[in-house]
């Protein structure tokens, strides 16, 4: 039986992304784009799961997983309240 082709999805940590364009420029399948200065998976169905975007991202802002593979605890993980903008901490 032929293996079902894997489908990949992207975990984006928008708060970490600095819009440097590295992942977008070097993606072999032009999956990613910048939208309002943040990374966005525009064509996720074309992703081949090479993970180069994940490995090259200097800000740990993007991860790629195969659907049904490893579960991911949270999109924005950690004990941080993401409802609070970072500027709010600088009084």
């Amino acid at each position, binding site marked *: 039986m032929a293996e079902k082709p894997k489908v990949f999805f992207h975990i984006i940590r928008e*708060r*970490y992304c*600095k*819009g*440097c*364009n*590295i992942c977008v*420029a*070097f993606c072999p399948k032009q999956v990613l784009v910048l939208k309002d200065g943040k990374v966005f998976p525009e064509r996720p169905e074309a992703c081949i799961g090479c993970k*180069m975007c994940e*490995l*090259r*991202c*200097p*800000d*740990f*802002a993007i*991860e790629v997983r195969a659907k049904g593979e*490893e579960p*991911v*605890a949270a999109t924005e*993980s*950690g*004990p*941080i309240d993401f409802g609070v903008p*970072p500027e709010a901490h600088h009084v």
Partner: protein
Amino acid sequence: MGDTLSYFRQDMLPHIWCPGCGHGTATGALVRAIDRLHLDKNKVCIVSGIGCSSRAVGYLDFDTLHTAHGRALAFATGIKLARPELKVIVMTGDGDCTAIGGNHFIHAARRNIGITTIVMNNNIYGMTSGQYSPMTPKGFFGTTAPYGNVERNFDLCELAKSAGATYVARATSYHVPLLIDLIEKALLNPGFSVVEALVQCPTYMGRKNKIGGPVEMLNWIKEGTVNVKAAAALPPEKLKDKILIGELYNKQEGEYTADYDALIARVQRKYDKFQGGLYGCASNSD
């Protein structure tokens, strides 16, 4: 890979580095290598000096030490001697490691002490705004080299090799899978290991030399490097001005703290033969 973020102090993220700074990529590569080896977080100690690169330890959820400029290896040597069972990792910049810390680097390599050193080489002093470093290529610009650097090119990996390091490798923030593999192998080497990670500093190196932003810098790094395995088959004219990446040296030799422990055991045995043991012997020394 499991959850990358579990190795970070998430309350410190996002980090302070500029958009597209290669230090983040090199730090991510280290974390992934540690994850592959399933190292116990409590048995890893990461030490750094001063510089943008040295800020890495502030984001890593291990026991970490942010020390004085150029002195990371000196502190790391102390830690390794006191607690040889720990995995001691040094994260340092090209300025930190080759200029002010060059002496410590030579002696750590000479002793073959079990420390894994990751040199995040961006060819410039980033933190202090773009002065040239010993690793700035000839002819390149910096704030202290406004007419181009006149000093000759310097190969840190060659220095490491000749000073006595037992594992020497180089990769880049473009070739990340290779970088992870090499760091993994370096972590497994019992003696002194050096992995030079060529990374981009778009803010100073990129701007001062009109290379461009992060993407253009990564292309510049990609074009300037050749894998050692591929280089073996290439004619010398194609290798002109190219930097070799990959595993450059790997040889097993006696590790410093292991040899030191063996010496302590030998001396202890010798003195235990005296009546009253070591203390009796010491107090009867007149």
